[in-house]
């Protein structure tokens, strides 16, 4: 093993890793980021939308220089069945502060920019090297082994993403069960800028974030999404893995059918597929957060299960950024006392507990279980569509009072189910 010992070696140049490197290097710590892809972001993908608050606090005004795509000003949520769509459409024309804004982005470019920022303040970065092993001595992490080389470090941050191979190796992360996971598949579809703006009713730099519940995931937990970029559209589905063995459709088929839905197809007509990507989404919230700190090691970002799916919005990147910052701060504190033991690094846990990450994860702790309810993805979208159809269909037969129409469709789902789900739903958000 080499003589030099870094204050921190960070595995993975995603958002958590890049930010941890930035915060550490800025304070003069000796830090190395190791990424198995050929550049930061080359293995990463997002839906993707970034809520800017956590990054804004670390790099104020980042959106002016970072390669972002569009500022989200339109939010849409659609209940989709095979042949209908009922949409809630919100345009936000109000002035937002920088921390309230959110942006669509693509990670290939964005992560490289963030890594550059970290390198500017002194972080070292090597790409194209896979970390094979975390080295320990007497139960304490002392470095990593990558491509046959052993590199010494006083601390290691595992920011290795949703599939934490090294975290599992150390026994900190239990192999997640499939029912805690979902899989996402996305197409990036290129379209001229003006066509995107016309079809989605957007001004110059405005963007649209659009989520779909119901048929996209073939009745399983999940849904579809569309995010508008500058000159492309990110279109995808997310599907829970819990019951995937019994699905009548494959995940790629779900995406294809969603894309060809009569409501979606005209939006992307004439577009060209320029990339196809897949990713696992941690869905279990606080229930899947692993052991976050041990002697000489911290876990951040997706690897720590920091993801929030609240149904009408999905968050992971803002949590990754804040957890990377917290990990860096904990290491800086440990460095002052020269104590990189679990005890010396324990401020990571405290910083997380005091931040929105743990507070939000705790707030929504019952939501993952609620979301497993198949009625949300099957019966409710159909119920809403049926009500709409009755309301908007005029065929000369005598009209029924709307109240009666509503009651009829509610009865199909069952009043008790509605009440039960209503109470459960309201108490879990």
């Amino acid at each position, binding site marked *: 093993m080499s003589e030099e010992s870094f204050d921190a070696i960070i595995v993975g140049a995603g958002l958590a890793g890049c930010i941890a490197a930035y915060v550490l290097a800025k304070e003069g710590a000796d830090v190395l980021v190791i990424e198995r*892809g050929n550049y930061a972001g080359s*293995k990463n993908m*997002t839906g993707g939308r970034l809520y800017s608050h956590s990054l804004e606090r670390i790099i104020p005004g980042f959106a002016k220089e970072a390669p972002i795509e569009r500022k989200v000003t339109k939010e849409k949520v659609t209940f989709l069945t095979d042949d209908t769509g009922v949409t809630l459409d919100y345009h936000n024309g109000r002035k937002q502060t920088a921390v309230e804004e959110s942006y669509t982005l693509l990670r290939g470019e964005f992560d490289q920019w963030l890594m550059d920022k970290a390198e500017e303040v002194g972080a070292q970065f090597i790409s194209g090297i896979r970390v094979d092993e975390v080295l320990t001595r007497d139960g304490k992490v002392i470095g990593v082994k990558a491509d046959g080389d052993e590199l010494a470090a006083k601390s290691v941050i595992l920011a290795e993403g*949703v599939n934490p191979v090294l975290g599992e190796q150390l026994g900190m992360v239990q*192999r997640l069960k499939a029912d805690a996971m979902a899989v996402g598949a996305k197409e990036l579809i290129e379209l001229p800028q003006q066509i995107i703006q016309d079809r989605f009713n957007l001004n110059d730099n405005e963007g649209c974030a659009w989520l779909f519940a119901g048929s996209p995931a073939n009745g399983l937990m999940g849904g579809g999404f569309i995010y508008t970029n500058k000159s492309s559209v990110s279109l995808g589905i997310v599907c829970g893995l819990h019951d*995937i063995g019994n699905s009548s459709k494959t995940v790629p088929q779900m995406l*294809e059918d969603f894309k060809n839905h009569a409501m979606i197809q005209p939006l992307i007509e004439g577009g060209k597929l320029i*990339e*196809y990507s*897949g990713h696992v989404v941690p869905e279990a919230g606080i229930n899947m957060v692993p052991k976050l700190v041990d002697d000489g090691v911290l876990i951040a970002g997706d690897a720590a299960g920091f993801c929030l799916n609240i149904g009408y919005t999905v968050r992971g990147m803002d949590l990754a950024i804040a957890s990377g910052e917290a990990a860096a701060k904990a290491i800086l504190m440990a460095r002052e006392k020269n104590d990189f033991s679990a005890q010396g690094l324990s401020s990571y846990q405290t910083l997380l507990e005091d931040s929105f990450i743990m507070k939000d994860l705790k707030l929504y702790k019952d939501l993952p279980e609620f979301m497993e309810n198949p009625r949300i993805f099957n019966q409710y979208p159909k119920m809403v569509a049926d009500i709409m159809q009755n309301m908007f269909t005029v065929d000369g037969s005598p009209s029924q009072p709307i109240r009666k129409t509503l009651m009829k469709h509610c009865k199909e789902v069952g009043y008790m189910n509605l009440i039960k789900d209503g109470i459960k739903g309201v108490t879990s958000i």
Partner: protein
Amino acid sequence: MSKAVNVDVKLSANKFHVDEGHAHIILKNNPDIKEFRKLINACPAGLYKLEDDGSIRFDSAGCLECGTCKFLCGETILEKWEYPRGTFGIEYRYG
């Protein structure tokens, strides 16, 4: 009705650095078909295939490295699951 998807066409839009001779995912011999079916359904790259004659086929080239198969069947029908070696595998130009 729904058009059958051709995932290979989609994958061909991607940039891959294939590590010839080093498969990073290896399937056990004679895998349990029920488990295999989960992967047919779940793999976003459609790499787990059932042929018309009932035989199964799997090739790790074209893998998006999402880990879905590891989470679903890591203990049951996968002999090995690891990330490709450094520099190899999928390279997202956009992400």
